[in-house]
């Protein structure tokens, strides 16, 4: 269901890994094959659990020795207690769920902090492609046709900030990814970033 950013994925993983304090507890929603959790468990001594829906990804996680449970994020996180994790990670998953706002509220209930990363739909190439080409934009990070894309809730950096304001969510840190480079603010991130990583809390 979820697409992996081969280039940017590694970049957003490294940002997330940097933000997470050693020895904390981490829930990674849409954890895929468990590479990020494996890194966090080995290098930062975190207590990590992954959640994914895809059978083969789960088998991959299990092979890495990562605790992982199969669950559909669209059905919520009712089985997790309030504040039971220091961090809940939602990396490149927000745009594929049915009700992003519900899930964001859920991850902030379950986690003391949440780290969300998402592809930026307002990247200048996307804008030009829609303006000049007249087609739904595609890119390396969002490569699908409109009719079979798993990315059903495309979002921009501005949109995400606005949502946080409306929902009284604190943005603690932002990091924007431009190619292989990252910047906390940089030049017009909503225009030039491929993806963003945001640390939020209630």
């Amino acid at each position: 269901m979820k697409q992996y950013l081969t280039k940017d994925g590694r970049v957003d993983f490294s940002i997330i890994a940097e933000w997470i304090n050693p020895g904390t507890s981490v829930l990674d929603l849409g954890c895929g094959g468990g590479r990020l959790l494996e890194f966090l468990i080995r290098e930062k001594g975190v207590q990590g659990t992954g959640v994914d829906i895809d059978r083969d990804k789960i088998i991959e996680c299990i092979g890495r020795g990562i605790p992982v449970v199969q669950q559909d994020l669209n059905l919520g996180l009712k089985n997790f207690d309030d504040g039971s994790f220091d961090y809940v990670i939602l990396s490149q998953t927000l745009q594929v769920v049915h009700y992003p706002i519900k899930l964001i509220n859920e991850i902030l209930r379950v986690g003391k902090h949440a780290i969300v990363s998402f592809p930026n739909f307002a990247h200048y190439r996307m804008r030009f492609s829609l303006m000049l080409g007249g087609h739904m934009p595609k890119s390396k990070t969002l490569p699908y046709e409109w009719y079979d894309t798993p990315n059903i809730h495309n979002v921009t950096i501005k949109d995400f900030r606005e949502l946080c304001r409306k929902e009284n969510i604190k943005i603690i840190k932002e990091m924007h990814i431009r190619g292989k480079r990252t910047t906390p603010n940089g030049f017009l991130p909503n225009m030039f970033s491929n993806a963003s990583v945001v640390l939020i809390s209630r």
Partner: protein
Amino acid sequence: MGNNKTIGLVQTQYFTFAEYKDNYLELDSGVRFGPITVAYETYGKLTPERDNAILICHALSGDAHAAGYHSPNDSKPGWWEDMIGPGKAFDTDKYFVICSNVLGGCVGTTGPSSINPRTGKPYGMAFPVVTIGDMVKVQHRLVEYLGIEKLLTVTGGSMGGMQALEWALRYPDKIASSIIIASTSCLSAQSIAFDAVGRNAITFDPNWNNGNYYGKPVPATGLAIARMIGHITYLSDEAMHRKFGRKLREREAFSFDFISEFEVETYLDYQGSKFVDRFDANTYLYVTKAMDYFDAGEYYGNGSLVEAFKRVMSRMLVLSFTSDWLFPPYQSGQIVDAMIKAGKDVSYLDIDSPHGHDSFLLEFEIESEVIRNFLTATYKMVQEERVK
């Protein structure tokens, strides 16, 4: 099909303990009981570090013969041949695999059909009521006898999964992991109801005679009906539809009488009568009762599974099957959720399968993939831990 390699010829072995009054085993009911003989088989080799032992727990109608053949003429191998052997999920080239018949069983381990040494006659109903916990206590004695301090994993499907769960709770530091397949932390009212009907079928058979039928005609009708009910709960609507549909056996049209004519009827007849030849009716009563009594949350957590799981010190893998309505996926989900809430290491996969509860015996290819990965990772952790 999977790997055709087999462990080959194997032998059932026996171990007897609790032979004297002062070392009888204390059962959950408070009764002190002995002597106890355990029938078991082992496959593969124990490492010098004794860290590669796996205990397989069988389900209701299983036995110690989990893999391989007893003689070259055997038509069928052990009950989990698909999963146990060289290069298989429970790889006998890497691991030392143990399987024993449960306490109360009828295939070598002491049960109601065994001779009571004090009377020289079979126990029958004089056999004490046992629990899943009691079965596990007996397995623990066997494992100690085999010189194993800590098992790499304990696993089983259905009632075998309950035993694996019981191990994680009763002997938390004696296992590195458990694999709980198509199982539950306690039976639902619906499952208890099916067991009750099975037991009624047996005890209302005139041949049952309050359990004293040894050496006389056995309650074959009752046991066969109990097995038929069981079989219905092991399949699924879809599996039955695929397998039998509304097909008639050996005829084109209805016969307008009450002889078994639908294929599903003759299948149940066959399963029922085949079971009578190899299984003891009293064991059916005792073992289903043990399952009905099993309630991990009640026993270890005063009704809270989360509380119960706080004592767990091992990793856990839970597998369920989408079409299993006897121990439905939500019951596996309860185990998983409680483990997470207790802050424990748990993994869960709900395997998509149309075969109902029986999936745990049939979906061995996907099970093998998951379990092989889980065991490899766990064994690596155990070895790294020792180096530390």
